[in-house]
Structures are given as C-alpha cells and as structure tokens.
C-alpha cells in the first residue's frame, strides 16, 4: 500500500448524510494506515460525534482528516464551525453534560479515544476541535 497516496479529506458538514460520508472516509483512511479494526472504528465514531455536534448546534462546518504517513503513522481530525461556541468547555470535556437530548458523551468520549485532543471555542465566533490518534 502506497501511503503517500492517502489524500487529506475535506468535507463540509451540514447534514447527517455528510457525517455518515466523512466518518466512513475516516474509517477507510484509518484502516489503510494500518489501524486495527477496533481502533479504526473508534476513530470513525469520534468523527461521527464531532460531525453530529456541528449538525446539531450550528448551521454547518467543516471536517478535515489528515493522514500522517511518515515514520510515525496517525490520523488527525479537525472539526470546525462558525456556530455559537461552547461556553462551558471544561464541563463538556468532563462528560455527562448535554444541552440537547444527547447522552453527553460526544466530546468527553472522543477525548478519551484520541491521544491528543484540543477544543478551542469562542462565543459567537465558533469552535475548532482537533484530535490526533497515533498508530501503536
């Protein structure tokens, strides 16, 4: 497998259909990088959670997936939107908090799954969530 050919994915997200599409692209990218199926599944679920948040709380956003194909292999997920922002990031990262009828697991669960996870959010400007999972 020529990993150099793993192109980054750039998907605009405005509907669940977009989420389904981008999480499947993420699953395939992770499998091609050599992640075992359970790890690739977790990466796909993180993409799904971040995508669903965009659909649920904003008018639309963007999800980028970048493959690290060098010596250290991994996958980077960047989800950004111009929504209202998360005004209690700490609480959301802790888990169990939800402003919709969700389980409140999306962000906190995603942080647990990823090796690196960062939430930048500014009220009225938007949110950018970056996560990296390394292949071990």
């Amino acid at each position: 497998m020529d990993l150099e050919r793993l192109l980054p994915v750039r998907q605009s997200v405005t509907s669940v259909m977009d989420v389904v599409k981008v999480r499947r692209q993420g699953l395939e990218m992770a499998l091609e990088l050599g992640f075992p199926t359970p790890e690739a599944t977790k990466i796909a679920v993180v993409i799904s959670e971040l995508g669903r948040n965009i659909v649920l709380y904003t008018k639309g956003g963007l999800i980028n997936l970048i493959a690290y194909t060098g010596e250290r292999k991994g996958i980077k997920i960047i989800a950004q939107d111009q929504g209202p922002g998360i005004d209690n990031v700490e609480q959301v990262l802790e888990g169990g908090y939800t402003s919709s009828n969700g389980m409140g697991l999306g962000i906190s669960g995603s942080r647990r799954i990823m090796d690196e996870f960062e939430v930048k959010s500014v009220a009225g400007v938007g949110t950018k969530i970056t996560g990296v999972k390394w292949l071990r």
Partner: protein
Amino acid sequence: METSTIQKLENLLLVSVPRDLMDDEVLRLRRQVVREIRKYHSRWVMLDFSAVDICDSFFGRFIQSTADMVGLMGADVIVSGLQDAVVETMIELGMTLENIRAVLDLDDALALSRTVQRTEMYTQGMKALNGHDIDWDNGWDALDMDSLHRDTHAIAEV
C-alpha cells in the same frame, strides 16, 4: 440507503438495524416497532446490529429510547449481533444502556425468549392454582378439576 426490515418469529419481533441510520429513519423505525408489537402481541423486540459497524452516541440513544418505548408496551428489547469493534468502542466512549439484554445471535435470543415464556407461564399457572381454594385435607377430590383445566387451557393460549 438500506431499509430496515421487521419480521415476526414466535413472540419475538426481529428488527434488522441498517448500517447508517438517518434521523428520520430512527423515528420511522421506532414507530413501526411499536405498531408491530401491538399487532403481534410481541413479548420481545430483537434489534439485530450485525450490519452496524459504526455506533456513536446517537445510535446508543436510539437503542435506549427504543427500549424505553418497547418497555411501555409491555415488551423487552434484546440487542444481538454487536460486532467486537463496536462493543469496544461503545465501552470506551462511555455508553451505558439500561434495561437491555444482549445476546450473541438469533439462537440465543430464541432460547432466552422461550425460557422466560416458560417461567412466566409457570408463575401464572401457580397463581391460577392458588386461586382455587384447595382443601388439602381432602386432597384432590376437593378441587374443581374442570375449572382448573379451563384456566390452565386459557393460560396456555395466552
């Protein structure tokens, strides 16, 4: 986009859950399940997840809300066919589901539903038996066997 199918088997409703469930499909599927429970007097709803390879918290919410609705209809949900990777992801994500039984496959689901049915019939039978004022001193002669037969027959038809 795959559509879900619902089939009746004994006192089970078999629901094959599609791989990528859209929001409107969730609503439709849940309503259909509730309708079919009423139609067939189903005791169990088996959600077959063998086609599902990505299960996020939205999906978890679907399982839980379906189980809650099914519970109000007097039935129970059995989840079956969860893939290894899906199970691992659900746990790591922190998903917990309440009042839901899980089995490996359809064979196990059938075995479970039959066992529970037998237990429930036995319990009902004992209740019916106790309802008949038995005079144990005079043995079985005192028991109105005709009405007992009628009752147990009625139970067997339930």
